[in-house]
Every structure is written in C-alpha cells, then in structure tokens.
C-alpha cells in the first residue's frame, strides 16, 4: 500500500528559489493590498456620497468583484483584455486582478466602517472650524482604521492565498515556481508539500505581525 519513495532532496536543493518566489508572492500581495486600499476607499466614498454614473460604476465594480470567482477575474484580465488588444505581462495580470478583487471587498468593509461613525462627529469637527479634509484625515479616518484593521489583516492573508492563482497564467510566484520545478523533476507531492508549509509560515507571520502592530497602534 505504501510503496512510494519520498524524495525530498531535490526540493531542499531548490529551497532558495522557492523562498525567493515566496518573496515575489508577498510583494504582489502587498502591492495589491495597497492599491486595493486606495481604490477601495474611493469606491466606498463614491458609493456612499454620490449618485448617477459614478455611483453605478462603483457599485458594479464592488458587486462584480464580490460575486464572481477570483479565477474568473484573473482570466478576464488575461484573456479578456488580450482580446481587446491589451497584452499584459503575467505579473501585471495577477496584480491587476488581485487589486480589483481587494478593492471590491475592502470597499464594503470601509463602507461599514464609515457607517459606524455617527454623523454628529463630522458636524462637530466641522463646527470646530476644521476643513472637510482635516475632518476626514484627523477624526473620521483614524476611527475607521481601527474598525477595519482586522478585516484588512484578513484581506492581506486572502491576497497572499489568491496570488497562488498566478500559477494558472504562468506567473512565477510561489505556486508557479513550484509547478515549474515540480514538472522538471516530477516530484509533485514533495514540492507542493513544502510550498504549503511556506504559505502557512507566510500567513502566520502576517497574522503575528498584525497582532504586534495592533498592540502598538491601539494602545489607548
């Protein structure tokens, strides 16, 4: 029954390139999260405050990102834009799809965060003579940040996990690199087992770092 010989040596020989690919994964995820935060904020504010075409644009972005598979979004940025004559590199495709997805999910989180802040605070801040910008940057955003901090951490983990889809469009992040190496030696199980451990460690590091950061940020 158990007549399979595990060969771990080729995997460990290639461990440096796997770890390097893991850093690529982390890099894409971080960039996607940053872009996602920026667009997510804009989308949330547009959806809450505006009417007309901009509202519909923001709403359809958010609903499309939340109600279709991430893989579909990746294919759309790959094949779909390719049909329109826009050819992107695998890196850009993954980054664009991840950012699109993150922005949609984060927009709803931000909207919940903004709605949790009572209107009276805006009015109080404005009547103290703050400009709209000061009011948002000094009163509203810090409170919203506290509310969305936990969802943001989760989104970061999701971004790392979702970047593994890059494997399907030929992007050499951790999964893509693993597949390329595994198909060379045909030690698929061993390679993917090590990769799973690397992902697990990355996720745990993110969660741990976010917890440490939270104790620093939210001391009061």
């Amino acid at each position, binding site marked *: 029954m158990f007549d399979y010989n595990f060969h771990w040596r080729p995997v460990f020989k290639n461990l440096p390139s796997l770890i390097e690919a893991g850093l690529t994964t982390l890099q894409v995820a971080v960039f996607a999260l940053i872009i996602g935060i920026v667009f997510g904020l804009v989308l949330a504010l547009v959806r809450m405050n505006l009417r007309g075409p901009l509202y519909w644009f923001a709403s359809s972005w958010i*609903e499309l990102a939340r109600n279709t598979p991430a*893989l579909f979004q990746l294919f759309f940025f790959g*094949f779909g834009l390719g*049909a329109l004559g826009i050819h992107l590199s695998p890196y850009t495709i993954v980054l664009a799809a991840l950012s699109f997805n993150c922005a949609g999910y984060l927009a709803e989180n931000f909207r919940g965060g903004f709605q949790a802040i009572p209107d009276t605070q805006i009015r109080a801040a404005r009547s103290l003579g703050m400009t709209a910008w000061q009011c948002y940057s000094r009163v509203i955003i810090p409170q919203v940040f506290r509310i969305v901090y936990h969802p943001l951490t989760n989104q970061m983990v999701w971004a790392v996990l979702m970047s593994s889809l890059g494997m*399907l469009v030929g992007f050499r992040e951790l999964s893509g690199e693993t597949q390329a190496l595994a198909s060379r030696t045909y030690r698929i199980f061993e390679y993917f087992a090590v990769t*799973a451990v690397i992902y697990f460690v990355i996720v745990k590091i993110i969660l741990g770092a976010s917890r440490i950061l939270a104790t620093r940020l939210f001391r009061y």
Partner: protein
Amino acid sequence: MEPTITFFSDLKINDLWFLAQAAWATLLISGVSITVGTILGIVFGWMLFEGRWATTLTLTPLLDIFRSVPLIIQLVLFYNFAPIIGLNLDPFLSGVVILSLYCASLVANVARGGIEAVGVPMRRAARSLGMSYWQDLRYVVLPIGGRAVFPSWVGVALGVMKDSALVSVLGYIELLKASQILITRTQEPLIILTIAGAFYFALSYPISRYAATLEKQWAS
C-alpha cells in the same frame, strides 16, 4: 481540392450546450461539497465549543491549515497524495474531498459562533424545563443560533461555490475550465467569459442580497 484547415472555429449552439453542462458540473460539485462541508462543519463547530484542551490541541490547528494554505495547493497536494496511500480518486472526488474539508473549516467557526450566540441563561432554562442535552441542542440552540449565523453561512457557501472554479486545475471540467477550452478553440474570449461571469453573478448576487436583507430584518 483540399479543404482548407483552420485551427479556430466559430462559436456554435453546441458550445453553448457544452457551457451549460459545465455550469451543471459547477453546481454539482459545489452542491455536494457545501452539503458535506456544512454537516462536517457543524460537528466541528460543536466540538470546538464543547471540547477543552483536547480539541484546542488537535482540531483547531488542523482546521487552521485549511484556511492558511491556498486552496489550489491543497487540491494539487491531495490529488497527488491520494495515489500514494493507494486511493485512486478521479478529479471530481478529490475536489469534493478538499472542498468539503475547506468548507467545513470555515463553517466550524460560523457554527461555533452560532452556539455561542445562544445565551447561557437560555440554555439553563431549557435544561431546567427537563430537556435533555440533545433536546436543548435540537430545539433551542439550532433554531436560535442557526438564525443568528445563517447570513454568514450563506457567505461561506457562496465563497465555496466561487472557489469550486479551482478544481479545474485537476482537470475537472467545470464552468471556467470549459470557458478556457472554448476560448482556446474559438478565440472569442469576451463573449465566453461574459457568459461564464454572468452565470456566477446571477447565482451569487441575488443570494447574497437575500442574505443581507434577512440579516437586516433579523437584527431589528
């Protein structure tokens, strides 16, 4: 006269039938996985709630793995691991096993939240009315706790439905895999991707909207 040979052919009625079958395959694998995953997840959730150090040491880290490793890696890993221990599973079964476990790991937390949502006084009241432990679970905790977490369960189920697209890496022909095959043949990505995306959207959007309304109604 030799007939001219072309690599690409137009989109035909047959292809739409092919897509419809693939959509059915998506529904099938997600339906089975969500059902099995939910039942398992409720059991796990109950164990997390009732269990003391034994579950904290075993079940919690185990379920954590399914949430910290990308689904695509889990699928590849299991598909290549099953033959090693002498199981010959086709892509569908491998997909069902992993998707169910993944779903169960998410539902477990939801279910535990549901049990925690029922207050201790309520359960004591049930017990002092002469209900047995199981009667209390069945007639008090299930209706009240289930109602409290039903919207989050819908979110998990829709997530699993969308993630079922990843079973395509094993060669299971579900909607996105079928779209990819058709795109390669017909070179018409926009139409095909729109159909596939519309299917997922039409399934996911109304259900998530319905869950959101229910949540609002029950909250008030």
